[in-house]
């Protein structure tokens, strides 16, 4: 890692002010993405601002029709929340599938969302559920938040403070994991929300998480795995790398989507 100065803040407002004062800085949430990237020297910064004392940003609040989770809530706490297992089980399951138990003990929801790794799980949940990202500057709809690879709508100095997830009628998330990194080669989030059907795909798109509108239309007409066969998927927009080429990723997206649909149907039987 390149050298940097270390700072510690106990609130989002304090961190925001410090970031503005320092000019050059990166926020450290759980550090499970930022530190590996700094070790590889993909990221260089003069200042690291550690948010681990921001207790106000931790917690799970089950409201009527929506669940709000603080940005600094760790994956393990989302995965093991008994309240969430009843209110929004798909999210607990998703969090329980991130990385490994040791990564989940430190990694946070807000860190994952602000980082917007193109193969991360939480962006699929936000987009699939039509969530609202809460920030120090206001609220941003998930549809407007994830802009591209490691790119979000966050302005300079704006922090994610939490996410409000509307509770859907039914939802499922299926991912095909890279066996070493545990990131999604393809992950598909299917939700039957109050305002319609939403499908978000992570791990596969060259511009990060995206909504598969053709499949949404197909499943709205007929909510059955076979309906996906007729849904178009433009593989020219999918990633090709040493792990999987675009055609194979396209195939995985279809298979994961069909599994998610089957899971929803089985649960509602």
């Amino acid at each position, binding site marked *: *890692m*390149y*050298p*940097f*100065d*270390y700072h*510690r803040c106990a609130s989002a407002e304090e961190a925001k002010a410090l970031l503005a004062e320092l000019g050059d800085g990166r926020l*450290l949430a759980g*550090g*499970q993405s930022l*530190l*590996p990237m*700094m*070790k590889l020297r993909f990221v260089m910064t003069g200042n*690291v601002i*550690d948010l*681990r004392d921001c207790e106000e940003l931790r917690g799970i609040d089950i409201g009527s029709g929506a669940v709000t989770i603080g940005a600094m809530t760790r994956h*393990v706490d989302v995965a*093991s929340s008994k309240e969430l297992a009843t209110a929004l089980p798909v999210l607990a399951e998703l969090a329980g599938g991130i*990385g*490994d*138990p*040791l*990564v989940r*003990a*430190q990694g946070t929801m807000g860190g994952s969302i602000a980082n917007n790794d193109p193969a991360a799980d939480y962006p699929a949940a936000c987009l699939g559920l039509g969530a609202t990202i809460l920030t120090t500057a206001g609220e941003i709809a998930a549809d407007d938040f994830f802009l591209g690879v490691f790119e979000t709508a966050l302005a300079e100095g704006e922090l994610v403070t939490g996410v409000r997830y509307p509770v859907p009628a039914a939802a499922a998330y299926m991912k095909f994991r890279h066996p*070493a*990194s*545990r990131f999604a080669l393809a992950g598909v989030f299917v939700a039957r929300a109050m305002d319609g059907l939403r499908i978000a795909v992570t791990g596969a798109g060259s511009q990060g998480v995206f909504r598969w509108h053709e499949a949404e239309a197909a499943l709205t007409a007929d909510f059955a795995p076979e309906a996906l066969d007729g849904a178009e998927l433009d593989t020219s927009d999918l990633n090709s790398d040493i792990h999987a080429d675009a055609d194979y990723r396209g195939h995985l997206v279809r298979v994961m989507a069909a599994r998610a649909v089957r899971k929803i149907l089985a649960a509602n039987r």
Partner: protein
Amino acid sequence: MPLVNMTVNGRPVAREVEANTLLVLFLRETLRLTGTHVGCDTTQCGACVVHVNGRAVKSCTTLALSCEDAEVVTIEGLSDGEALHPMQAAFREHHGLQCGYCTPGMIMSAVGMVRRLGTDLDRDTIRDELEGNICRCTGYQNIVEAIRAGALAMADRPDA
């Protein structure tokens, strides 16, 4: 250089460190606690697992300065003097190691697993939970058996 204070294996320590010092290097090179290993250094293999405030974490992906005021326990802090911790004893009993390089991380993960999930762990759960620990000798069969037995032995040792 900034100063960091933490408790390591029950002993308070205060040392100056560069801000970019990882916890694993602080433990190994500053405190000379070399039982915690560096395997991959890329957050995958789990040879560096220690407990920070009771949570099993990868010390190669934690800054030493983030552990200010934390309680850190390494493999050296697990045994009670010469008496092995029940999980260590189970690894010896069940041949849960070959070359031994991954063993400190395996044992720290296993103890973390028991603290989160209880002492009656089935083999599928153990295998799932070992996702963050890699054994290059691929001796997983006996590691799983050792953890199952070690977890049960911990039931009789609530303080362990």
